[in-house]
Structures are given as structure tokens and as C-alpha cells.
């Protein structure tokens, strides 16, 4: 691919720009939740995360206290206090009472709201609203203001989700599910792959065909019978039907076709001479497998391990069917899904939780990308 199809400066420049645009589209979404997860909870909803580094004015909305807080002074009814309440004071540049004109009045001036009502908001957030008639209603006046706040970054969100939202516990649950479900299939698949690659026995070709067929069988086909089976086993032995053992075995089963397929094609490609000379030296199949095939297959074993790890860690469907939703069983993906329902608008919780769930795959991915790509190239027909 050394042939440069476009030789002019303009077309080369165009390629750089085009790739830059693609990279931007593919990274900005993830960057968005990373930045947001580190922002102050109030600032997340006050301004877009792309503005989070600038302390330029942001428009916010608030509500003045309800009528019950009013005091009568010199024949006028007065509401006063500070917009920021107990919170940190920022500097207000302008304010308004309509969403369409949130910065209608400069800070420090008195705004005439009609009916003799006036409202003054100072730069430090103190306000005075007065009216010749008593204020009414449980809800205070809606107020908009442009304030400039210094960008505020915090790890508070991480503390919240890890320790009080249950994400920390789910993280442990995910690890509990993932590690055994990654390790167990490897050995089982490796032996089967060796037999299918290097041992002659009747039915071998059929077995290989079955495994390739099973590669693409949708997971959905397995769910109902297995759910029935698990419930049956559970009630027969009087044990819970949703257990870690159950999901370990399920993930093992669903991962096996790909594992055997991937390992077999690699092991079949090992040089025949090595096996034959070992056999002539009197080594049994078992010895050949353990002493020669396993060490030589390390790269493909690593590839499969990464695949299976990512697959199990990121799985939602199997976890929702075979594990419970209690704190001691719910995995990260299921927890995140539950939070989407219960904490729908709380972006500080959602972005932070999402980042916690993707951090482990990202680390695995970046540190072991070479093996991951190799596995991808070798077995791009993964069904599962």
C-alpha cells in the first residue's frame, strides 16, 4: 500500500482532515462522559461539558423563595436573600425572569416586572424583590441569571457512585462473574481444539461442522430452555436458581464454540514436524499437548482470554436472565441499566457510573490490543 494515490499537497491535506474528523466523531462521545464525570454536579446541568474549561458566563435557572418567606416593610412586601443560598457564591453579570430573555437586566439594576413589582439582583447573588401587594403561591418567582463560575472539577461523583449508589459492589460482582467465566473455558476448549486439530477419529469432521454452526446460533435460542432447566434444578435440589455457578457455566457454554474454533485453527497451523518428532521420541498425546502445544499457543490463548473477558464483562442479557438483581449479584451493566431507569436525569451519576463500567475494558483493550486484533482477525465469525 505504498502507492500514494493522491500526490498533490491538497489531497494529502484532505486525507489528514478527513481522518481527523473521523477520529473526532469516534472519541468525542466518550470524552463527553469522562469530562462530565469529573465536573461538579451543578455545572453538568448548567452548561455543556464542552464549555467546562471556560469560566465564561453560563446561564442558569433558579427559583426565588415562595410567598411564605415574605416580610412586610414600609407598606411593601419584600422577599430577599441570596440566589446561591448556602452554596458557593459566583459572580452574576445579568439576570432575567423569562426563559426567552435570561439576561435582560444587568446585575445591580432594578428590574420592573409590572404591577409595581421590582426585582434587583446584585453581582454577589443577593436579591430584593418588592411588591405593593402580598406575594401569593407556593412556588417562588422563576429567575434566570448569567453567572461566571470558575470551572470546578471534583472526584466527588466517583465517591458517590462507588460507595452509595452500589457501583462499587457491582464492580466486585462483575469481577466475580468475569474471571472464572474467562478461565474455565480456556482449558476445556484447548483440549478439544487439540483433539480436533491433530487426532484422527471418526466423526471429527462432523464435530467441526457442528461447532462452526454453533458459532452463529443466537443466544436467544438458549435462554428459555436454560431458564427452565435452572429453575427445575433449583427447585429439585432446593437451592436458588440464580447463582454465580450457573452464570459461570452459561458463559462457558456460550463461549466454547468460538474458543474451540479459534484455538483449533491456530493449533492446526502449528508445524507438523514438531509433533511428529515428539511422537517418535515416545511422547503421548497428553504430553505433546501439555509440553508443546500449550506453550506454543500462548498468543491465541491470550486472544481468546481477552475476547471472553470483554464479552462477559460487557454482557447484559445473560446476566439479566441468570443472575438476580439484588446488591450481592447485580453486575455493572445491569446496574447501569437500572440506574438509567431510576436516576434518568442525574447525569453526574450516570456519566460516572458509565465511566466506571468502561474503564476496565478500556485498560484491557489498550494494554493488550495486539492480542485482541489478532483474535479478531483469526475468528471474525463470532456468534455467541
Amino acid at each position: 500500500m505504498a502507492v500514494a494515490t493522491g500526490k498533490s499537497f491538497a489531497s494529502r491535506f484532505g486525507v489528514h482532515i478527513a481522518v481527523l474528523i473521523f477520529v473526532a466523531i469516534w472519541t468525542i462521545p466518550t470524552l463527553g462522559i469522562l469530562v462530565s464525570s469529573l465536573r461538579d454536579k451543578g455545572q453538568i446541568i448548567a452548561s455543556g461539558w464542552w464549555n467546562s474549561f471556560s469560566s465564561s458566563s453560563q446561564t442558569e435557572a433558579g427559583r426565588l423563595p415562595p410567598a411564605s418567606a415574605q416580610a412586610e416593610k414600609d407598606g411593601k412586601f419584600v422577599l430577599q436573600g441570596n440566589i446561591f443560598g448556602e452554596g458557593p457564591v459566583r459572580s452574576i453579570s445579568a439576570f432575567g425572569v423569562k426563559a426567552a430573555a435570561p439576561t435582560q437586566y444587568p446585575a445591580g439594576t432594578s428590574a420592573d416586572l409590572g404591577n409595581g413589582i421590582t426585582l434587583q439582583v446584585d453581582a454577589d447573588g443577593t436579591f430584593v424583590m418588592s411588591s405593593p401587594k402580598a406575594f401569593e403561591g407556593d412556588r417562588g418567582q422563576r429567575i434566570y441569571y448569567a453567572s461566571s463560575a470558575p470551572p470546578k472539577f471534583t472526584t466527588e461523583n466517583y465517591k458517590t457512585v462507588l460507595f452509595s449508589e452500589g457501583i462499587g459492589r457491582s464492580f466486585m460482582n462483575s469481577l466475580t462473574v468475569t474471571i472464572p467465566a474467562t478461565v474455565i473455558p480456556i482449558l476445556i476448549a484447548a483440549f478439544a481444539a487439540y483433539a480436533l486439530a491433530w487426532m484422527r477419529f471418526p466423526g471429527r469432521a462432523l464435530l467441526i461442522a457442528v461447532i462452526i454452526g454453533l458459532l452463529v446460533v443466537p443466544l436467544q435460542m438458549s435462554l428459555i430452555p436454560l431458564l427452565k432447566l435452572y429453575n427445575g434444578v433449583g427447585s429439585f435440589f432446593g437451592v436458588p436458581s440464580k447463582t454465580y455457578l450457573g452464570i459461570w457455566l452459561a458463559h462457558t457454554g456460550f463461549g466454547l464454540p468460538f474458543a474451540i474454533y479459534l484455538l483449533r485453527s491456530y493449533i492446526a497451523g502449528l508445524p507438523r514436524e514438531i509433533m511428529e518428532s515428539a511422537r517418535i521420541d515416545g511422547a503421548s498425546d497428553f504430553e505433546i499437548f501439555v509440553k508443546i502445544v500449550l506453550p506454543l499457543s500462548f498468543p491465541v490463548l491470550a486472544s481468546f482470554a481477552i475476547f471472553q473477558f470483554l464479552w462477559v464483562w460487557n454482557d447484559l442479557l445473560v446476566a439479566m436472565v441468570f443472575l438476580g438483581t439484588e446488591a450481592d449479584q447485580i453486575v455493572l451493566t445491569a446496574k447501569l441499566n437500572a440506574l438509567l431507569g431510576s436516576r434518568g436525569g442525574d447525569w453526574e451519576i450516570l456519566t460516572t457510573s458509565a465511566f466506571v463500567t468502561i474503564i476496565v475494558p478500556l485498560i484491557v483493550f489498550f494494554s493488550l490490543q495486539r492480542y485482541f486484533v489478532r483474535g479478531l482477525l483469526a475468528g471474525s465469525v463470532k456468534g455467541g
Partner: protein
Amino acid sequence: MAAQIFSAILVIIIGVGGCVAYFWGANKLVDLIFPSRGVTGAAAIDNLRRQGLVRPWLFVGPAMIILTIYLIYPVIATLWLSFFDRSGTSFVGLANYEWAFGDREFRSSILNNIIWLAVVPAACTFLGLIIAVLTDKIWWGTIAKSLIFLPLAISFVGASVIWKFIYEYRGQGQTQIGLLNAIIQHFGGQPQVWISLPFWNNFFLMIILIWIQTGFAMVILSSALRGIPEETLEAAVIDGANPFQIFWKIMVPQIWGTIAVVWTTITILVLKVFDIVLTMTNGQWNSQVLANLMFDWMFRGGGDFGRGATIAIIIMIAVIPIMIWNIRQADKETEGH
């Protein structure tokens, strides 16, 4: 929690230890029952032959048992259950299938699935191919590829949160915290609730899967492009072909097989797409797809296994052609050995 970690570690030890013990022990047992050493002549040859008959099955045995329980039996059982009622006890013939094709939600799911199948594999393959070609030409291409590849490591649920944040909607005139609406509003447009827009919301869900899977297509196609013999490209340049002709007439035809593999792999993935729809809309606003509908029926009103199984069978039927094609391809390869 400590108990949980302990039991997980214990399982790894028991699991790995058990596997090793099984394979080692079974192997020893075969050697004991049919000794090939210490016996002479015909007996040794006989025993060696018997060992050769038994040992492969010891090696593939555990895998076969697990595959049978977790995949082969369930496929048959699901087919069986699709002819039964909700609890799986009384035979109802084709009633579930009749229900499915008369059900408005099912038909809408089929329609949506067809749109997903038409758009996502094509978009991923096309974008992946373009990015693979472009990144091959620049010095920082590897870094660019890594970054575009990255979403593949993210779970569908995580990706859904990421994109839900981008699609976030605030009323017009308010500060938009969703990137898409912020851009629209910046250029004077009207912010939209993207995930409930009739019909088009499907496409906003598809974008998530395209975002995840393009990296996959890119990596596979990039490696195929590198396998193209350089002489063919040089010859085309000498003959005066322009870059587009080289791309469409020289490069694409040579990697046709790889494109097919990428396309079918993503097709299978699309048929099973579940997490994205569940987390973004849960099938509301006419965005239902088969896999999510199936999950829904598994638990709806205590669970209707008959209808759930029927929907699974429909998904399976869509996969069968790909399955047959894969097996044929694999057969061809082994014959070539």
C-alpha cells in the same frame, strides 16, 4: 463480599484444578486399562489402537457435554417450546406463529429489524473501508485506528449512556447539555427529543451500533487491504487509473471475501441487538426489535415461554443461511489443506 471473592477464587482453583485433574487422570486411566508399555507384540499394538480410539473422546468430551447442555439441547427445546402455550405444558400447534404475524408489535419489530439489517452492516463496512484506506496513507494512522477501534471495548449499555447524553434534550432556548441539540441550537435549529422521533429514532439507535462496530470492520478490512499485491496497484497507476478507479476496480474486488465476512458478522450481531434498544427506549416509540421483544415476552406477565421461543426461532431462521454459508466455507478450507 469477602465470602464472594473467596468463593470466586475457590471456583477458579477448583475449576482449573478439576479440568487438569480430569484430563490428566483420564489420560492415566487409559494408559492403565490399555497398557502399551510392558506388553509385547500384538497386544501392545492392539492396546495402542484402543488408546487411539478412546483418547480423542476424552479430550473433546467435556466440551461436547457443555455444548450439548448449553447450545444443542436448548436449540431443540426452543423449537419444541414454540409449539406450546405460555407455561410450556399444552400443545398449541402453530398458534404462537399465527399470533406473531398478527401482532402489531411483532410486525413493527420485524420491520425495524429489516431497517437495522439494511443500514448497520452497510454503514459499518462502508465507513470501516473508507477509514482503513485513509489511515493507511498517513503517519499517525495507527493512533487514529486505535481511537476509532476503542468503542469496540465498550459495553452496549455503556455506549447507550454515552449516546443518551449526546441526545439529551432541553426545551428550546435553554442551555442544551446534549451535544447534538447544542449544535442544532447553535445554528438556529429546533432542538429535538431524538429518541422519540417517529421512525427516525431507529436511526439514532443504529448510530450507536455503527459507532461501536465500525472499528471492527476497519481492522479486518485494513489487514485485507495490506494483503493486496502491490503490483496490481502499480499497474493500475501506470495505466493511468485515478484514485477512485483504483479503489473501486482494483482494491474492492480483491477483498470481496473479507467484505462478505465483515458484513455477515455484523449482520448476526444486528439480529441479536438487544441491550441498546432496552436501555435507550425499551421498544417505546416504535423502536422495538425482535431480540428485545423476545426478552420482554420471557418475563412479561410472569413470562410467556411459547411466544418467547417463537420469536427466538424467527431470529434463528434469519441466521440459518449465514450458518450454512459458514460451514461450506470452512469445509472448502479444510479440503484445501
